[in-house]
Every structure is written in C-alpha cells, then in structure tokens.
C-alpha cells in the first residue's frame, strides 16, 4: 500500500514538474530574450515584472474557440497536439533529479528517453499532414527531413555516454559520472546538445516552424488550446533536452553537498542549459534545411563516431 502511495506521489511530482518547469523556462525566455534585444518583455501580468504572463496566456488559450479547418483530416488534426505533448511527460518520468529522486528508474532509461522523444516528432508530422494546408505540409516535410539529420548524432552521442558509464540507467550514469568526463565526453556533449536543439525545433534549427517563411509550419492551422499544447510541448522538449544534457554530461546532482542539495544541482544545471538554448535562439539566424543536413552528416555524425572511438579506448583502458 505504501508502495502504491509512493508511486502516486512520484507521479504527482512528475506531473507538477511537467506543468511548472516548462512555464519557468518560457518565462525565462520571455525576459532573457527581451533583455538581450534591449527590451523588457512582459511587465504587467502578475504585477511584478510580468511573472504571471504565461499563466495569463494559459487562461486566454483555454477560453479560445476550437477551430478545425473544413478541409482537415479531423481525427488526426485533433489528436496531433496530444501526441506531441504526452511523450515529454513520459520522458520526464525517468529523468532523475537527485539520488533516488526519480519518477521511475528504468534500467534502459537512456534508450527509453531517446525513443520516447522521437514520438513527439510524430505529433508535428501529424499536424503538418492533417491540416490540408500548403504551409503545414511544407513544415511537416521539413520536420521529417530534420529528423533524418539530428536523430543519428543524437543517438550516437548518447551511446557514447552509455559506453563510458557501462549502463543505460540514467541514475547509474550519474553515479558513474566523473568531473573529467567534461573533457572526455566534450565532443559528445556538443553533438548531443546541437542535435537536441534540432530535435526540439529550436532556433537556429526552427526551419519546420519558420514563422517568417512558412507561417508556423505544421501549426499554421492550429489555434486556441491545441496551439497552446504544441507550444507547451516545445518548452517541455527544452526542459527534457536540458535535463538530459545535465544528467548525461554535466553530472546531474553531483556537486558540493550532493546528498542534501542534489536536486538543486540538477535543477540549476538544467536551467543553465535551458538558458543556453534561449541564448542561442537570440544569437543565431535560422539555418536552411539542407545546411542542417550538411552540418549533421558532414559534421556531427563524423564527430560522434570519433567520440565513440575515444570513449571506447578510454573505457577499455580504465576498465
């Protein structure tokens, strides 16, 4: 019984994190991006520097009309946002934030997270295809094209960490982590982060949504709550990517006073990586889809293979 209660508590914790942390990242993006551009961002909602802007947005979205275009494939169109959103909730379940502080520790956690993150992309594809809109279709095709580019270096970089740690459990990886991994796995970290950016379709790899050229890609026809779910999925994606980068490459909860403050370390590292995601968005212009392909196949994949070799040599030598 107490075990059931504990499970319920863990699930509740994951749900709360899922609903809060993406909003936190979104708010940081609002303010940090604004100040990087010499603006101030939201100032009114919640009275103090617009802290409740995203809550206000949510209240607005939930009151908006639910429009399904007449030409759209209704069923697919309607469930696409959920398909995009729920995988990130599931991914959050297995990401540890402290020793024992994890929704559910899976012994194939790393593999599982990567697999589940791939499902989220299907939501975008569904939205792009079912909208019966030319912009959406182009966006959907770009989503598919992008998948070809980032997925492989992403997986290879993750495999490098698995090789270094000798386990696929995310908790096990953090426990095996050593500060000198920062150097040893540096290439993998960069490859993982860059291809992760492409995975969550964040600038400079936001060609699928490219609001200035194909309106909003797969989300052109979406409005109201369904649109909000897609956006929430984007920010949940940033959180999952940042948390994964922190857990795999930055040592998760490892740091001074890790027994008491481990969760804080994970959170700080995650937020630091999320800040870089936002920072990169402000600093760089959007790439073209073929430039991403070139970057991935001629840059990231060879780099990841090189990292695999380095990891293999290092792991066998130290074993």
């Amino acid at each position: 019984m107490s075990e059931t209660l504990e499970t319920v508590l863990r699930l509740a914790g994951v749900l709360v994190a899922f609903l809060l942390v993406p909003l936190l990242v979104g708010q940081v993006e609002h303010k940090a991006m604004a100040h990087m551009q010499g603006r101030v961002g939201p100032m009114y909602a919640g009275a103090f520097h617009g802290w409740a802007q995203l809550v206000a947005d949510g209240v607005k979205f939930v009151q908006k009309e639910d429009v399904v275009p007449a030409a759209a494939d209704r069923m697919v169109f309607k469930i696409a946002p959920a398909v995009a959103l729920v995988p990130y909730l599931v991914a959050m379940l297995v990401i540890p934030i402290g020793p024992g502080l994890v929704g559910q520790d899976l012994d194939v956690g790393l593999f599982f997270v990567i697999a589940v993150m791939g499902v989220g992309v299907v939501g975008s594809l569904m939205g792009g295809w079912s909208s019966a809109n030319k912009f959406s279709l182009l966006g959907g095709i770009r989503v598919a094209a992008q998948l070809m580019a980032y997925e492989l270096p992403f997986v290879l970089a993750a495999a490098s960490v698995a090789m270094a740690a000798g386990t696929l459990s995310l908790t096990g990886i953090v426990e095996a982590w050593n500060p000198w991994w920062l150097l040893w796995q540096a290439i993998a970290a960069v490859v993982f982060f860059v291809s992760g950016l492409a995975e969550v379709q964040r600038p400079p790899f936001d060609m699928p949504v490219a609001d200035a050229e194909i309106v909003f890609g797969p989300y052109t026809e979406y409005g109201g709550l369904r649109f909000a779910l897609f956006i929430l999925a984007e920010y949940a994606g940033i959180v999952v990517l940042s948390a994964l980068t922190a857990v795999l490459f930055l040592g998760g909860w490892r740091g001074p006073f890790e027994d008491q403050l481990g969760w804080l370390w994970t959170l700080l590292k995650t937020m630091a990586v999320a800040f870089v995601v936002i920072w990169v968005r402000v600093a760089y212009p959007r790439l073209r889809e073929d430039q991403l392909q070139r970057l991935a196949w001629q840059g990231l994949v060879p780099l990841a293979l090189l990292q695999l070799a380095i990891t293999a040599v290092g792991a066998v030598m130290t074993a």
Partner: protein
Amino acid sequence: MNWPGKGLAKGLAVTFRQMTRRSVTAHYPDALPELPPRTRGVIALIEENCTSCMLCARECPAWCIYIDSHKDVIPATTEGGKDKTRNVLDRFAIDFSLCMYCSICVEACPFDALHWSPEFEYAELDIRELTHEKDRLRDWMWTVPAPVALDPGAEEAKEIGVAEKAAERAAAAQRVVEPVETTTGDLDKLDQPKEGDT
C-alpha cells in the same frame, strides 16, 4: 586572429553584453512619450476660421474629410444695397480610420483652420467612432501647442515682414501728418524751443 567558431562566440558575446545593459524600452502607458514638436497626432479644427472652401477635402488623398455647408444671406445694410452671402459650416468631419496623416489638408488650408495636435490616444472599439465631427475636432484645438520658435538666424516668417511694413507705413503716414499740424499751430515754437520748454 581567426579560429573556428569565432563568429559563433562573438554572436553569443554580443547578445550577452546587451542583456547586461539597460533596455531602451519606452514604458508608454506608465511614462508618456516625449513627442517631437509638429507631431502628427490628430487634426484639430478652428471652426471660426473655416470658410467651407473645400480645399482640404479636395486635396485629401484618402478622401477622409467630409464638409457640408450652406449659404446664408446677409441683408444689405444700406438702402438699395445688394444682399451679401456667407458660407456657414454645417458639418466638418475627418474619418481617422482612413486618414493617412499626410498633412496635405493642414498645408492646403488658406485660413489656418486646420492644425496638428500631438494627442494620439483616441483609439476606439468601433470604427465608426473614429470619424470625428466638428465639435470633437474643435476640442482638439485646445491641445494644439504654440508654434515652435524659429531656429537662431532663420529667415523670419512672411507675416512678420508684412506686418512690420504695414506698421512702418502707418508710422510714416503719422509723421507726415504731424509736421503739418505743428507748422500750422506752433511755428514760433520751432524757432524758440527753450521758451516752449519752460
């Protein structure tokens, strides 16, 4: 020195430095903007100056000025004289949903009946409310600022030159008249000024 990724690092550095600086945002509803002189906010009308000549309405590229007027007959004041007619303004309206703030009407008005006011907060929820009738246009007149002072060394306004010439002419005419009076009245005084003083 060039090294790979230098451009990328520079991009990050520039954005981060900007973040540490004060933002340039104008906090508009909390702090009102300092508008430059001659700001084109809204057009004000001095009804008394308007002769319903329709020049502004005809020059308006957006056709957003509506003028209705009728002729009033002023009966002759002298016996057997001719009756005079006078234009009376019935309606003067500007549709600010069409206006493109080109200022041609203000320039075109020969009687200085139209002026720019810097007021800009007249948004409406109903587009029909954006057609300001003459009472409202007259009210904007109270917000028209005094003309801006000329730049130092600038050519004076034509009106001042005209007025000065007129004043000089009047003064000269007076001087011509005055000596005539003195010669006829006090010719002796001119010969004996000291006596006249005492």
